[in-house]
């Protein structure tokens, strides 16, 4: 009896183990006789479903190429990709975050697709947003964009920033929301993102607010100023770039130099510059004043409550920003368009979008995010893999993605079509994203091949925002280190 039982158990165990092997590999019969392309990316559940459907569409409509889509965990993606690219088993085509592309190019992982793009009948660079072309086309020695620079990837999409606002909170705070483009506003006094007239407050979600208007409207929505405010805070914006760029400043500048220690020049940290900018004959705040304005939104200029919620220690965790809006702590939140699908799922109040703020005399400015599809330099199927890239990055793929509330399409024509502009779900004011795609810029995290220079001081910026440190002491503490790190990027080896 014992022998029979042990034989049955062994047989069951062997069958169980064999079952595990049955799951190995993709057994789709369409792989036979086709060029097999491995495609890696990360995605949440909804995006995975949409991308799987698009891959299936591509595989079904032709019999030359079979694309196998593998979803990798987002948190581990970079490590897994770099290990694969450095060894064997690298995918043919993969996502590359914009802040990693220059690093991968410097390590010779990425294939130059310039020739493939030239020959392509689907990819039309003239119909692509300028900021995308500049992001993925650069010289591999200087990392600077030029017209004839190699192309290292085709953009997946464009994450244009906007102010997400809680329409219900605005209504409860007595603010009337209107949606009229500036060109159609009659009275000069009403050509503002926020204004008061005859004792009533108006918010026009088609016109960018100035810094002063932002403070005014945020006070109505911050409980420390207005005890009847439906939200704790009026505003939340993690990044200072828009404020800097609006006055003509930036976080770094390139200084050309004949110093033999450098390859033509070096980068310099300009965040703390105190020289005022000039634009169209008007004097604008310096970089330091612009940053001071942004940080003062949190500290509230020595008021008990700021207009922005206290900064969490690690604000790069996007979920903290999301919950600030979905939990109705903050009435307004600045984020790129990639937040739309999460807000559609998690917001149980009415919301929409408005343009990011600008200095009254400055230019309209904001940051965009993006990532691209790139080809592995070790792949021997680049021409075939590129056909899939063309599909995903071309008009058809972009229109399909636009329908599902993802980022702004990389094609100008698709962005300006009803496929993107018209929506049955919020946000309805998608013109804000289409307009933003024209003037918004690539973030400073892509300027250089890695972020050693900005990581050195970014966490300390939270102390400034929480009132524990001044911007002056931050600049004096970190100026030497940041500039030393910046010089390493162009130092002769």
């Amino acid at each position, binding site marked *: 009896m014992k022998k029979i039982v042990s034989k049955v158990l062994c047989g069951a165990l062997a069958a169980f183990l064999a079952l595990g092997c049955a799951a190995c590999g993709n057994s789709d019969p369409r792989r036979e006789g086709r060029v097999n392309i491995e495609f890696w990316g990360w995605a949440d559940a909804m995006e995975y479903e949409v991308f799987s459907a698009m891959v299936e569409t591509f595989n079904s409509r032709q019999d030359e190429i079979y694309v196998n889509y593998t979803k990798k965990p987002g948190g581990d993606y970079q490590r897994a990709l*770099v*290990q694969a690219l*450095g060894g064997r088993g690298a995918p043919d085509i993969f996502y590359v975050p914009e802040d990693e592309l*220059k*690093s991968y190019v*410097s*390590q*010779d*992982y990425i294939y130059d697709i310039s020739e493939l793009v030239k020959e392509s009948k689907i990819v039309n660079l003239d119909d692509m947003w300028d900021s995308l072309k500049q992001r993925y086309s650069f010289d591999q020695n200087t990392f600077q964009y030029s017209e004839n620079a190699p192309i290292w990837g085709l953009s997946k999409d464009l994450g244009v920033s906007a102010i997400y606002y809680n329409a219900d909170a605005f209504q409860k705070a007595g603010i009337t929301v209107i949606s009229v483009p500036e060109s159609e506003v009659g009275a000069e006094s009403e050509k503002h993102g926020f204004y008061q007239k005859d004792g009533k407050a108006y918010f026009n979600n088609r016109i960018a607010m100035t810094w002063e208007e932002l403070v005014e409207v945020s006070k109505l929505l911050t409980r420390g100023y207005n005890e009847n405010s439906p939200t704790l805070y009026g505003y939340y914006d993690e990044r200072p770039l828009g404020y800097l760029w609006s006055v003509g400043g930036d976080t770094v500048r390139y200084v050309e130099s004949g110093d033999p220690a450098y390859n033509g020049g070096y980068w310099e940290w300009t965040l703390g510059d105190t020289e005022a900018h000039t634009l169209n004959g008007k004097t604008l705040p310096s970089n330091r004043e612009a940053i001071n304005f942004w940080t003062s939104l949190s500290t509230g200029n020595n008021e008990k409550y700021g207009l922005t919620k*206290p*900064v*969490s*220690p*690690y604000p*790069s*965790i996007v979920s903290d920003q999301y919950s600030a809006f979905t939990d109705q702590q903050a009435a307004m939140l600045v984020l790129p368009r990639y937040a739309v699908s999460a807000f559609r799922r998690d917001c149980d109040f009415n919301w929409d979008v408005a343009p990011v703020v600008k200095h009254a005399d400055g230019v309209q400015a904001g940051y965009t995010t993006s990532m691209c599809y790139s080809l592995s330099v070790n792949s021997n199927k680049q021409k075939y893999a590129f056909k899939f890239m063309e599909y995903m990055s071309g008009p058809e793929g972009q229109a399909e993605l636009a329908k599902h509330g993802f980022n702004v399409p990389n094609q100008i024509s698709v962005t300006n079509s009803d496929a993107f502009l018209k929506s049955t779900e919020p946000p309805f004011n998608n013109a804000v994203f289409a307009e933003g795609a024209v003037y918004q810029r690539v973030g400073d995290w892509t300027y*250089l*091949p*890695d*972020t*050693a*220079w900005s*990581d*050195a001081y*970014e*966490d*300390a910026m*939270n*102390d400034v925002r*929480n009132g*524990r440190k001044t911007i002056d002491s931050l600049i004096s503490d970190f100026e*030497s*280190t940041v500039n*030393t*790190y910046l010089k*390493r*990027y162009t130092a002769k*080896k």
Partner: protein
Amino acid sequence: MKRKKISGALKSEYRWGLLLCSPPLIGVLVFLLIPMILSLILSVSELHGYMIEKMSLLPLSNLFGNYGYVLTDPLFWKSMGNTFIYALSLPLSLIVSLVISAMLVSIKRGRAFFYSIFFIPHICSIIALTQVWKVLLNYNYGIINEVINGIFGKRVDWLGTQGGFMTAMIFMSVWQSIGFQVVLLTSGLSNIEKTYYEAASLDGASPFVCFLRITVPQISPIIFYLFVTGMIGSLQEFTRMQSITAGGMGPNQCAVTMVYYLYNMGFNYTFSFGMGYATACAWIIAAIIFVVSVVNFKYVQKLVSYD
């Protein structure tokens, strides 16, 4: 002088001895010596990325440039300070473990239950534990702040200020390490001869004096072992800091320990720094740990009683 002839049996024994020693010797060669030599070469080279064929030696005039840069980087010195502050958790945990062990020894029933309770944090994944503590320490909704707020009417920004952050990290380290220390110390305490205490009490010694003059010297070898190994571990602290800051540097860069600094330079900043720089940093850290260990053996060991 005639050479002594080695018998056939002895020759065979030598051969067998060599054969049986060879696997660990090959292991030491392949996994220790050769990598150490390679890393020494890498520390005086440049390598941006992970493809070893792209490695290039630094020019002779600047052969130790990587070492020089590490030693002149303010962030490296900051990381060293952070590491030694974090290492204060070691003496604290030893004191707490000693007190707990002294209490456990006097328990006759249920000792295994308490062993298990204290040992559980030691066997759990650091990543999982730091994520749990991140929630507990949250300024707005963490239970620790809810209790503090209920009693004192104030909240503590544990993860947002340098003082709060390091206090929290030291506490977490103590909490996680006492399990293993308690097990070792309790076994040491159990083996102390009762006659010493009897003789001491006959001479009128108080319990505190007995603890100081009998208990501590008797278990001093165990304390010394825990101190040396704990110090080496503390000086290499990385996982907890990286996990709780999600890759950030912490308030005022206080989360950057020496190994975390090395990791960032080698794996995150591959272009501006890279593997050559990180390897030089690793050798400097190894030298620091070596010096600390030598100091421990030379001076701290004098306090150990081997009677």
